C-alpha cells in the first residue's frame, strides 16, 4: 500500500456566469511520508483550492486524490470529516484556535470529536506540548499566547491524532521573521521525526530552505520549481 498523499490529474472548475474558470488545472503531485513540500505562487493562483482539495475540504471536479492509498474523491460528507479528523493535520493561519479552550484542551477537543479522552491521550498531548516548548502554557487561553505560541499550539493540534498528512496554510502569515523561522523549522522537524507527508502553502519565500521540494502554482497549474531560482 502506498503511503502519503497522491494527487493525479486533479482539476477544479467553477462556473462564473457563462465562463468556466479552472482553479486547478490538471494538477498531479506525490508526497511521501517524511517529505516536506512547499507550494508558492501569487494570490489567486489556486493555492488554497489546491490545499482544500488535498485536505478533503473540497472535492475535485476531475482526477483522483489518494490519501494513504484510499481514494477520497467518492466519499460522503461525514466520511470526509472522519478523514480530516484522523488522516489530516491542519495548521491554519494564526488565531485559528478555539478562543474558550486552554492550550491542553485545544488538543483534547480533537480526541473528543471521535469519542472519549483517555489518560493516554492526555499524556500524549502534554508530551507533545512540552516537546514544542509549551510545557508552561498548558492552562493558558489563546488570548494570553504570543503569535508564535499560538502557531506552536496549532502544530501540536495538527499532530494530536497522529495523521499521515500535514497541511499548513500560510502558517507564518502573522509572524515576524524570527518566529516564522522558529515555527517552520518546528514543522520540518516534526514532519521528519514523525514521518509525515507535509505540504505548506506560503507566500514567504525565505522559508523554503526547510522544504525538500518547492512547487510553483500559476493559473491553476502546478510545476516543480528550483529552490535556487527562487532564492
Amino acid at each position: 500500500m502506498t503511503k502519503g498523499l497522491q494527487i493525479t490529474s486533479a482539476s477544479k472548475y467553477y462556473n462564473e456566469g457563462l465562463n468556466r474558470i479552472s482553479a486547478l488545472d490538471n494538477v498531479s503531485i506525490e508526497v511521501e511520508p517524511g517529505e516536506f513540500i512547499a507550494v508558492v505562487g501569487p494570490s489567486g493562483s489556486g493555492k488554497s483550492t489546491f490545499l482544500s482539495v488535498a485536505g478533503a475540504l473540497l472535492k475535485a471536479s476531475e482526477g483522483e486524490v489518494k490519501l494513504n492509498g484510499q481514494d477520497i474523491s467518492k466519499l460522503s460528507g461525514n466520511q470526509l470529516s472522519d478523514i480530516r479528523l484522523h488522516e489530516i493535520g491542519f495548521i491554519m493561519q494564526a488565531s485559528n484556535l478555539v478562543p474558550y479552550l486552554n492550550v491542553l484542551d485545544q488538543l483534547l477537543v480533537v480526541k473528543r470529536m471521535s469519542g472519549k479522552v483517555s489518560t493516554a491521550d492526555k499524556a500524549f498531548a502534554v508530551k507533545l506540548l512540552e516537546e514544542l516548548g509549551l510545557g508552561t502554557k498548558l492552562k493558558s487561553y489563546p488570548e494570553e499566547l504570543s503569535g508564535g505560541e499560538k502557531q506552536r499550539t496549532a502544530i501540536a493540534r495538527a499532530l494530536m491524532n497522529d495523521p499521515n498528512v500535514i497541511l499548513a496554510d500560510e502558517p507564518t502569515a502573522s509572524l515576524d521573521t524570527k518566529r516564522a523561522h522558529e515555527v517552520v523549522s518546528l514543522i520540518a522537524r516534526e514532519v521528519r521525526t514523525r514521518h509525515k507527508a507535509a505540504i505548506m502553502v506560503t507566500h514567504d519565500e525565505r522559508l523554503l530552505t526547510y522544504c525538500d521540494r518547492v512547487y510553483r502554482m500559476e493559473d491553476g497549474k502546478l510545476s516543480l520549481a528550483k529552490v535556487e531560482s527562487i532564492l
Partner: protein
Amino acid sequence: MFLALKELKHNKARFLMIAIIFVLISWLVFILSGLGNGLSTLAASTFKNMQADYVVFEQGSKASMSKSLLPGELTKQLAEMPNVKAVSPMGTIMASVIKGKSTANEDKVDIAIIGIDPGSFLEPAVIEGTGLTSDNMTQVIVNNTMKDEGFKLGDTFQLDGSTESLTITGFVKDQTYNHVAAVFTPIAEWRKIAFAAPGSDKGFTEPVNAIMLQGDDIDSNALNKQLSGTDTVTRAAAVQGMPGYKEENGTIMMMLAFLLAISAFVLGVFFYVFTMQKTNQFGIMKAIGAKNGFLGKAVVSQVFVLSLSSIIVGIILTYGTAAIMPKGMPFMLDPKLVSTYSFVLLVISLLSSLVSVRTISKIDPLKALGRGE
C-alpha cells in the same frame, strides 16, 4: 457537553445576560400561571373539589347555576337512571353578610350561599367544628377565609337585605365560589333565602338550581331525552359554565400563550446570534474534522444547561414571590402546573436552538482557511 461547559465558564458575562432574560421570562410565566390557577380556584374551587361527576341543569341554562332552576322531585327520577350511583340537589345564591350591627364598609362581606343536603356527598369535610345537621337549619359551615374577616366558630351573622341569621358551626377549606367564600347551608334554608319573593320559585315544589350526579359513564344524551327540560353536562363543563370563568381563564391563557411564543422567538434569536458570532470557530473545528453532530450537540447541550438553570432560578424566585405576596391575592402555585410550564419552557428553548444547529450544518469549513474562493 465538553465544549458547552468550557465556553459557559469562559464567557460568563455573555451567558449571564441571556440567563437573566430567561430567568425573567420563566419567572413571569410561573407568576402568571400561579395567578391563573389562583383565580380559577377562587372562582370555582367549590365546584372543582366537589365529589360529583355530572351536573343536571335546566335546558337552556348554558350550564350555569344562576340561570338554571329545576323542580326537586327530579332527584328521585335521576336516581333511577342507568349508571347513576348517587344524586344530590344543590342551590346557590350570592349574598352579603353583616358582622354584628356594624355599618362600616369593611364589616360587610360578600359570600356565596350554597344549599346542599346535610350529610350528602356534596358536603365538604370540616377542618374545625362540626358539619351540617338537618335539625338546625340556620347552622352553617363556611370557608376558612372568613376567619381572616374576623369570623369565629359560633358567630351568628345576619344576611344583608334579609331577616335570616346564620350561625357558624364549622370551617371548611378550599371552598370558594364566584371569587367569594362559600357558605354551606341545608338546602331548605337556602330555599328560604333564595325564594324570599313570592313566585320566584316558578311554582316548583322544592326548587333547586341543579342536581349533582355521581357515577361513571353516564349517558348525558339519554338523560336529556328521557327527562324533558334538562341538560346534563360533566362537572368540568359546569365549571366552564360559571359566569366569567371562561373569560377570566381565557385572558390568562392568552397572556401565557403570547409570552411563550415571544420567548421562543427571543431565545431563538439570541441563540442564533450567538451561533453566527461563532461561525469562524465552527468552521475551524469542521476543517479539523468535527462533524455537524458533534457541534450540534455542543450547542443543544449548552442551551439545555442554560435553560435548566434559568428555569430553576425562576422557580425559586416564584416561590419567593409567593411567600411575600399579600394574603388576599388570588395566587396559587400548583407543583404540577409549575413542572408542566418548566417542561414547556425547556422544550421551547431547545426547539429554538435547533435553528442554530441548522445554521451550523450549513457552515462551510473552507471559510476557516481565511478566504472564500
